[in-house]
């Protein structure tokens, strides 16, 4: 299997901190931030960026379409 490396970018102001992406991530990349956005939500962020494989699971389940996914083959 080719090695892949991914990264996700969260639109922190659109994120409502619902936690669904955190649950959906198969490699435990995401977590909710201690800080909050303008609306007071603990937005999602990459806590373990090295583990990201760019599988898009987080973006698939995100109700607010606030996740952009990137992937490169190494």
């Amino acid at each position: 299997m080719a090695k892949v490396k991914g990264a996700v970018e969260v639109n922190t102001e659109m994120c409502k901190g619902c936690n669904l992406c955190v649950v959906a991530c198969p490699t435990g990349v995401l977590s909710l931030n201690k800080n909050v956005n303008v609306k007071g939500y603990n937005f999602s962020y990459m806590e373990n960026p090295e583990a990201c494989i760019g599988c898009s699971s987080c973006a698939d389940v995100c109700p607010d379409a606030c996740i952009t996914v990137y992937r490169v083959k190494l």
Partner: protein
Amino acid sequence: MDIKEIMKPENQVKAKSKLLTDVPMHYCPGCSHGVVHKLIAEVIEEMGIQENTVAVSPVGCAVFAYNYIDIDWHEAAHGRAPAVATGIKRLQPDKFVFTYQGDGDLAAIGTAETIHACNRGENFTIIFINNGIYGMTGGQMAPTTLEGMKTSTSPQGRDVSMAGFPLKIADMVAPLDGMRYVTRQSVHTPTAVRKAKKAIRKAFENQKDNKGGSLVEIVSTCNAGWKMTPAKANEWLVDNMFPAYPIGDLKNV
């Protein structure tokens, strides 16, 4: 490899559909409505039919759907979306027409419109969000509410001897000769989301050959109405909603 190196436009594999506006959705955090809106926007974008799609929004939480997906919309009175869509599709048969309705809208006040539009084989798509509850008005019991399920109007749980049994609309319309495609999907996991998107795509594609109606039921969560976290609501969905509303195609001809 540096994160900045990965986050380059050429490496982008998934981004927000261009059809979704920048208006933040008013839905509660983790609501299934948002996921389904996203799928519909993606399907319309991928089919390149943005200019040729007319949607009918319901009364219910999705009443403001027209603010979020950049296509033509028509608002219908509570439950009447299939009647309005019938008019639109008959006058403009070349347009892709769909209704987007909750269970309070489609399976309670609008049951007659739903059944008759399906029976007439109107050539549009019905997207049916079944969260077993009236979300918008404060979580009252709907016809789809499960037996024993607690809602604001059935605090002891739904008593079927008084309130009847969960109404299974997809099972009811599937045998109708007017219907061509009836399926039940969900959006609680990445795999389910991808399958639901395929189903929505198929329901839209079906309109091209004018062979009858398509209904896509999405068994959904209403975490605020169910009084659970979004993740817990997804688990509850699997344990409680799926036995009553099993996922899969009911009709595909």
